[in-house]
């Protein structure tokens, strides 16, 4: 069993293509949609987590590529220099999965690695530059 976070970019002509259904039916994958930004006749973005046999995931990615849908694997991990953080909250404003959150009552920044899509938006949004992309270790 393997899990892979993938960003998919649909060209306007493909936004009505039932890709998720086909991934489930033809490749036996479990699909978890983490973020979606799809509009008719516009380039669409989808971030999904695919779970299944490694071979099936590889075949599914090949299939996606054949449909002219671009994909990008999130194979890094985010690091946060917590000790330097001032907990301003700017990073939370762009985090699509709410992996970075700042909530009542204490308003401390919290980072939930499990929820992180490794999209990298927060890296530039952090005014103190305390978030970085690191390569994931093997097996992680």
């Amino acid at each position: 069993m393997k899990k892979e976070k993938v960003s998919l970019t649909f060209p306007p002509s493909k936004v009505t293509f039932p890709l998720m259904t086909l991934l489930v039916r033809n490749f036996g994958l479990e699909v978890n949609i983490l973020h979606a930004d799809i509009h008719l006749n516009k380039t669409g973005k989808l971030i999904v987590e695919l779970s299944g046999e490694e071979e099936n995931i590889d075949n599914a990615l090949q299939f996606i590529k054949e449909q002219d849908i671009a994909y990008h694997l999130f194979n890094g991990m985010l690091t946060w220099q917590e000790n330097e953080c001032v907990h301003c909250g700017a990073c939370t404003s762009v985090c699509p999965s709410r992996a970075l959150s700042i909530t009542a009552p204490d308003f401390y920044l919290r980072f939930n690695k499990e929820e992180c899509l490794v999209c990298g938006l927060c890296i530039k949004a952090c005014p103190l530059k305390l978030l970085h992309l690191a390569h994931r270790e093997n097996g992680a």
Partner: protein
Amino acid sequence: MSVKTIDEINEKISEGKAVVVTAEEMIDIVEENGPKKAAQMVDVVTTGTFSPMCSSGAFINFGHSSPPIRMTRVWLNDVMAYAGIAAVDAYIGATELSESQGMAYGGAHVIEDFIAGKDIRLRAESYGTDCYPRKSITTTINKDNVNQAFMFNPRNCYQNYAAATNSTDRTIYTYMGTLLPNFGNVTYCTSGQLSPLLNDPEYRTIGIGTRVFIGGTQGYVAFQGTQHDPGQERMPNGTPVGPAGTLALIGDMKKMSTRFVRAAVYEKYGTTLFVGVGIPIPVLDEDMAVKTAVSDKDIYTKIVDKSGKTSFSQTVTYQELRSGFVTINNKKVPTAPLSSMVKAREIALLLKTRIQKGEFLLTRPAELLPREANRLNKLDIRGV
């Protein structure tokens, strides 16, 4: 009717008998005891804010070289400082960008590095005069080898601020952070119920000469800040529904700490400076007890479209903004702060401790801030 004077409060502080609470603690005290009793119980309320404040900078006097130079152009770590004043004085502004690193480093970083005790590369040019013959100099400076270095911030502590969103279909990059397309997020920037001027909304106690906590040390209110706009629309509790009063602050930069002054970069906007400020408010009477008990549910601001493409405006409370979501056009939109509540609380608590220990006395303003004034002027394109 006055319950006590600032002199009486200072006497209590000196004797270690003053009752000092933070602006957040005051909310419950007034709720439980009523303002009349609270005014008798509490002597001082401490406030705090830690926000990006672009209109910040510092004057530094470098000392004279031999032979001397009348510096006409000055760079600190490749960031230009204003030198159109006396021979070896310069003003480094927080938002000035590095000539070699662009937006990655700016005047704010020079200030943070200076406070951290690092060596800063000084480069200066001149045309040379009979009395100042040297035409250029390159050296290093730090906080131990310059003369005066004082932060002088023309506009800090904005009394409330508009929250920001973006109506367009592309991401925009602003001093209010990254704003996602189609009302994708809302950012806001005050410490709300802990904010200094929101706890003294009519400037009864904070004025010119008021001693403040700034950047870890004691400083002063030098004047009304630039764009001070007391005529802003206000709620019945006196708090403005948008940007209103401001403070020009001054403080000894050599005594500051990077715990309370940090350089910041906003993507595709530029650099700015997080400044930590705390102001003690004397609870002189029942009215000040009511004012210092203001809470986020009673403070309003407007969400505005920072793209400038629409006149969108929606009034919300800070309680709604702090909940993490607001509703815009029937859509749940995530909100995010840009001003640190963690740091604001740290400052209010530290100031409380310093007053309790008798290390920080209150001041009576030499002059009050303007409470009524014409609204702000616009810069029109005028004939020349």
